[in-house]
């Protein structure tokens, strides 16, 4: 367990050696051309926890564009179209920082573009369902100035998919993007999600990873103008043999922005493996930054492994606050005993404890249909763990 809070005016030097990135995060290679990227190597920090063999060839295979197979539904405030690289937003939120993303990028000539034009009370849904193997998809989600709404990208069925999601949050808008990985058990998925956040804009980005053999989601948020806020939320539940990896990166490039990163996961079964790496970079110009990141993992059984690595890089002392907390713990049998001693059976007791643990995230989602679905999934996972 590590806890650290950097107070205004102090610098990051108090951090332990393991928390210092090998290179400054901003210097990592970015390119959409696969040839610019080196082959996946376990000695590279990015691939430290994930064996390339688990990627089912997403880094090297020839992939086919899945943009045409995505199904969009949404209220009138949204528009949906397939665009190509001539679209003015194409490639403006970020560029691939690893081989699978670059491979996906170069294979996806089209991008599925969702535009939020007004205030939508109902969420738009982009379904990525059963698109099968060796696919690539490029998705662009953007919110116009003063708009407000939610886009859900819902991944189900079987697939191997190298995905890029660009999120461009317009000035003064409030956008929620939810990425649900509820794949069948053999699916393999990499998803590089890049968000560019405009002036006084708010992004709530929610990653929910439940199903799939290998899932690697890398959300990046970059502030471009002051007064903006991002909240990166993540919830995952890994079973035996599953690898669920989340690497978030918040780039405080400008002054007076706020970020909160909160990822929580539960693990059970042999070989269940989760990884969370949370990079936050506070650049020299980013005075008045307020950031906090937290990751907690609950290990329900033996044989599961949770890696949790917060990285704070701070280039200016003039900040509001910067801190992180990270902890992974076993399921507490004393909690179970306490609840059972009040008549609650073991399954219900486990359910209460795990839900309680994940509640912090679930409560923040604020979308009822997703909360219901999550509760059902957690239920399902827990029933499995007891039997």
């Amino acid at each position, binding site marked *: 367990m590590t806890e650290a809070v950097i107070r205004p005016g102090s610098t990051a030097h108090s951090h332990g050696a393991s928390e210092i990135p090998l290179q400054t995060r901003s210097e990592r290679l970015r390119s959409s051309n696969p040839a610019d990227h080196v082959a996946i190597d376990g000695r590279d920090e990015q691939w430290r926890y994930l064996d390339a063999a688990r990627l089912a060839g997403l880094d090297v295979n020839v992939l086919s564009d899945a943009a045409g197979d995505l199904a969009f539904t949404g209220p009138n405030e949204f528009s949906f179209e397939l665009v190509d690289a001539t679209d003015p937003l194409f490639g403006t939120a970020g560029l691939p920082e690893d081989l699978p993303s670059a491979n996906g990028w170069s294979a996806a000539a089209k991008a599925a573009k969702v535009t939020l034009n007004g205030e939508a009370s109902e969420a738009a849904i982009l379904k990525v369902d059963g698109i099968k193997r060796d696919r690539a998809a490029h998705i662009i989600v953007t919110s116009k100035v003063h708009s407000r709404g939610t886009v859900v990208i819902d991944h189900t069925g079987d697939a191997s998919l190298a995905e890029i999601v660009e999120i461009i949050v317009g000035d003064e808008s409030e956008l929620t993007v939810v990425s649900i990985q509820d794949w069948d058990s053999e699916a393999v998925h990499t998803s590089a999600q890049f968000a560019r956040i405009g002036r006084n804009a708010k992004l709530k980005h929610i990653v929910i990873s439940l199903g799939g053999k290998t899932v690697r989601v890398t959300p990046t948020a970059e502030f471009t103008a002051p007064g903006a806020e991002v909240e990166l939320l993540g919830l995952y539940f890994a079973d035996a043999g599953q690898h669920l990896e989340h690497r978030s990166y918040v780039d405080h490039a400008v002054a007076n922005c706020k970020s909160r990163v909160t990822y929580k996961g539960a693990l059970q079964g042999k070989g269940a493996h989760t990884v969370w790496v949370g990079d936050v970079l506070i650049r020299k110009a980013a005075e008045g930054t307020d950031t906090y990141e937290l990751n907690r993992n609950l290990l329900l059984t033996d044989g599961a492994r949770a890696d949790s690595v917060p990285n704070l890089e701070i280039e200016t002392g003039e900040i509001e606050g910067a801190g992180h907390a990270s902890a992974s713990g076993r399921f*507490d*049998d*004393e*909690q179970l*005993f*306490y*609840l*059972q*001693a*009040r*008549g*609650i*059976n*073991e399954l*219900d*007791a486990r359910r*209460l*404890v795990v*839900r*309680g*643990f*994940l*509640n*912090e995230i679930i409560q923040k989602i604020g979308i009822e249909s997703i909360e219901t679905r999550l509760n059902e999934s957690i239920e399902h996972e827990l029933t499995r763990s007891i039997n």
Partner: protein
Amino acid sequence: MAILQIKNLHVSVDTEQGSKEILKGVDLTIRSGETHAIMGPNGSGKSTLAYTIAGHPKYTVTEGEILLDGENVLEMSVDERARAGLFLAMQYPVEIPGVSVSNFLRTAKTAITGEAPAIRPWIGEVREAMSNLKMDPGFTERNVNEGFSGGEKKRHEILQLELLKPHFAILDETDSGLDVDALRVVSEGVNRAKTAKGFGVLLITHYTRILNYIKPDFVHVFVAGKIAEEGGPELAERLEAEGYDRYVKA
């Protein structure tokens, strides 16, 4: 009329040096309406007895039996024991992050009675019990025991006792850490629950103070994993005056 019988109970815990016997033949019978106080030095095994009755997995019964109205308690799971009417107010109540008191209480009540209580009367009942225990109604929205002070945790235990209405209440140092007012409030809670339900009480304590409020019918001196002496309320007075020296030396 219910009866809880503990016969020749031997209990061990696993330690790094192997199994260690803590209870060395405890005999005790409690009937509905009776209050039994257990007093004894630190480490003598009082909590072990309480936890073993409740079924904590850490303790292994190597010999003897526990019967509730003739039923073998040792064959029941922890939750079955609670549903059968055994209640343990713990010396160190556990924090459960993310689970609200109101959710917890309702889930427990539902489990014990086998059906969800009707919402309105239930909320009323919880409110009344909390007000009797001088607990702020805001506690229902807080997470179970999280950030509660020592005394608040104990009140919360007695709140559960009042709401869950067991046949036997085992109170493990419920009085420790309570200020004088809280001691009275909590004791009244126990007495109220006892009057309403007529349950039997096994009250573990280090102090005679609480016995002024909750009058014991029997006092048991617990030493080195056994009951060393039994008597009426006057025994507690003597222990207060003389301590445990004569039992420990003997």
